[in-house]
């Protein structure tokens, strides 16, 4: 086999990559996801064509400490959804090594019950340096699966500690998975995590300490509810994912949350907020990209720095001046 540049290939089929995704090409979806992951500028165009077809999938986020059983649960939830003849996309995120940039993507191996089923699409993603438990482009990948027509998109976050709350901004329903014996206790839980959970799962209920953990979390949820009025009170469920125990009640709870979101009008509100956030950050990126290119491109910036270093100019006024030159009609 000769050396081939896959880039060339992509440009060949590029023209209708989005169309192919919308027509149900798994291959095109996989390829487009790669473009998006690579933050290839060509991807935006395709995302643009796909966008009108998104918004239909229910996005389920699964987060929790390493090894709590997120992947196993994802596998079981997928099975139940498949029994209901729902199509499923899974995005499983694992961390990239900060030193080498490489990654071992270990979630897929836990999700093999779905293998051979054309209506399940699993994609592993590396964080590529992004903090927060997801890759920078995970939200876009979800959109691709959504646009492709998946009824559900399940997102498994990186299992690292408890600061990873980005998932809540991305998912409609967020599950926080805890397990006994993994140092998961309420004391160690940061407030952030409590705020993002729409549902708690105490997995590995076959291990000792599960009931205590359930009680602990329930008490905490109660306490929180008293401090802060909330329309939704996160239920706490027990599962034994390896033995497929508790999966169906879990799915019912997820469905309840989904109906709550829809009936209370929350879904609309939340999605509007998400759209706002996303659009805003796209805008910021676009602006800073364009502006910086202009400023850094012509070498004048270095001269300016010289002036500032020499105290001939001050940075505050200089920055204002630059912006006024680029957006003259501001004021």
């Amino acid at each position, binding site marked *: 086999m000769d050396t081939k540049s896959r880039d060339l290939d992509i440009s060949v089929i590029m023209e209708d990559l989005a169309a192919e995704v919308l027509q149900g090409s798994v291959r095109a979806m996989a390829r487009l996801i790669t473009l998006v992951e690579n933050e290839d500028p060509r991807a935006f165009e395709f995302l643009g064509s796909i966008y009108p077809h998104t918004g239909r999938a229910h996005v389920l986020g699964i987060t929790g400490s390493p090894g709590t059983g997120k992947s196993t649960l994802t596998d079981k939830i997928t099975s139940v959804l498949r029994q209901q003849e729902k199509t499923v996309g899974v995005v499983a995120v694992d961390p990239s090594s900060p030193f080498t940039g490489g990654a*071992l993507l270990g979630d897929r191996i836990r999700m093999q019950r779905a293998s051979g089923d054309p209506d399940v699409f699993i994609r592993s993603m590396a964080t590529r340096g992004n903090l927060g438990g997801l890759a920078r482009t995970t939200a876009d990948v979800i959109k691709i699966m959504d646009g492709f027509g998946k009824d559900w998109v399940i997102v498994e976050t990186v299992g690292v500690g408890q600061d990873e709350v980005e998932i809540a901004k991305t998912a409609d329903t967020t599950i926080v998975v805890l397990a006994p*014996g993994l140092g998961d206790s309420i004391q160690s839980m940061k407030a952030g995590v409590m705020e993002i959970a729409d549902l708690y799962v105490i997995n590995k209920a076959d291990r000792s300490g599960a009931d205590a953990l359930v009680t602990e979390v329930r008490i905490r949820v109660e306490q929180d509810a008293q401090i802060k009025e909330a329309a939704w009170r996160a239920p706490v469920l027990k599962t034994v994912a390896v033995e497929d125990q508790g999966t169906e009640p879990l799915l019912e709870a997820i469905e309840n949350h989904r109906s709550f979101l829809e009936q209370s009008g929350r879904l609309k509100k939340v999605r509007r907020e998400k759209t706002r956030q996303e659009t805003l950050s796209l805008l910021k990126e676009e602006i800073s990209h364009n502006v910086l290119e202009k400023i850094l491109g012509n070498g004048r910036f270095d001269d300016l720095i010289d002036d500032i270093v020499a105290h001939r100019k001050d940075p505050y006024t200089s920055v204002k001046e630059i912006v006024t030159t680029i957006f003259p009609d501001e004021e």
Partner: protein
Amino acid sequence: MFDKKKLETIKTEKEQWDCGPVEKTCAKFPERKTTFTTISGEEVERLYTPLEVADFDYDTKLGFPGEYPFTRGVQPTMYRGRFWTMRQYAGFGTARETNERYRYLLEQGQTGLSVAFDLPTQSGYDSDHALSMGEVGKVGVAIDSVDDMRVLFDQIPLDKVTTSMTINAPATVLLGMYFALAEEQGVPYSKVGGTVQNDILKEIICRGQYIYPPLPSMRLTVDLIKYCYEHVPRWNSISISGYHIREAGSTAAQEMAFTIANGITYVQSCIDRGMEVDSFAPRLSFFYNAFTNVLEEVAKFRAGRRYWARVMKERFGSENPRSMMMRYHVQTGGVTLTAQQPLNNIVRVALQTLATAYGGAQSLHTNSYDEALCLPTEEAVTVALRTQQVVAEESGAADTIDPLAGSYYVEALTDRIEAEIDDYIKKIDAMGGTLKAIEDGYVQKEIQDSAYRFQKEIESNERVYVGINRYTMEEPPPTNLLKVDPKQRDIETEKLKKFRVERDQKSWKAALDRLDEVSRTDENVMPVVIEAVKARATVGEVCDVWRNIWGEYRPKEFV
């Protein structure tokens, strides 16, 4: 062993030697490396003296062969009475072909048989199963039914040989067939002797032939042990295996530690099922590796024997010395053998055999020089067997017991490995036992990290491996490799088709129904398994009964 004053003098003298002659010599001729380590990474000092074994107490540390703590061996006369059993692991193709290899080996002076099954059999699939595609008879013999078992032991009287069977997840089924065959041959159960591996924990850790989740798997394991204790007194009902752990990449100390940890779990499971420790423990046996670093291996074996004896006595309150004896089979280190310059492997195996003899094993398989190329050819197997015979008959290693005892180095290393075993056992206990440590991937991770470290040492040339990173040469491609007929599956499939039609459907069906019923209770499955295979149920059919009840297991695989 030494009095305080003497030790003081030695200490002063050693310091003088270090600062004097050693320093001078090193200044002129620096040593080859700054630190020396065994293949397992144990640091090795320049010189061992009484100082390293200062608190050595002969009676507590060594004692006498055949006596607690068995450091020096499990029998009073060891190889002066009888050599270790020479047992070459073999199997490929059809039962007929393997039978021929067995009879050849017996004629060549081999003293026991060891059955290698193909992967479908080991995974509980019949030869005609879709997942057996391409695998039938490839790396072991294909056994589907008691008919195949009969051919495998054709003209081999089961009361005259002892047989070892490397079978784990479906151990009850294959052993059931063996017992059924013994009955056919008119050999009473009391005269049948041998070993079945039956060690599911290490399958999950590093060998990959598991079928059911851990708990039902453990139930099968214990059912088999219990049945043998009650009915087949000469049968070693489990071979708790460190061999594979080492092959997968562990160090010597890890090999011993994780095997003992698994052993503890099996003993506890048997006790939990209501068995007296001294009823079944005398039939527990072990299986280890032997690498080329002779002294480290010897220390490992001695440390392991001593530690196990203490575990049985102190942790489980055993009172029968036979329960405290770690009796074991050894296979030389397959992974130490190279595809490059394969004849060098003969030398490696010879050293490993020596380590095994010095270490006091009960039986041994020596690998063939073509290990890294293919299943062994007859010629290569013969050399491997002869290697054992040379060591046994000519080296003198078998003429006195535990000849390396008292070596400052060997005793110090024995102590050190024992301490490492102890650390691991404590750590695993703290995690809640082996099952949890395996489930969380701890044991696997430790092994893989060692494997990775070793590879890096080779690739950075930190450790020299002859023919791999030094003393390499251009070679013509190897010739004379053993080939297994790729049409095997068709042959077996045809055979099975006929077999399935010709058997008595009613009794076959009834036996499987009965198996299903009993498997759902706490009753021992062994008797009904034996009935089922006599009623001509196949390995796959029996295993499917359990797949239906317990499901299939996919352990977390860690990288």
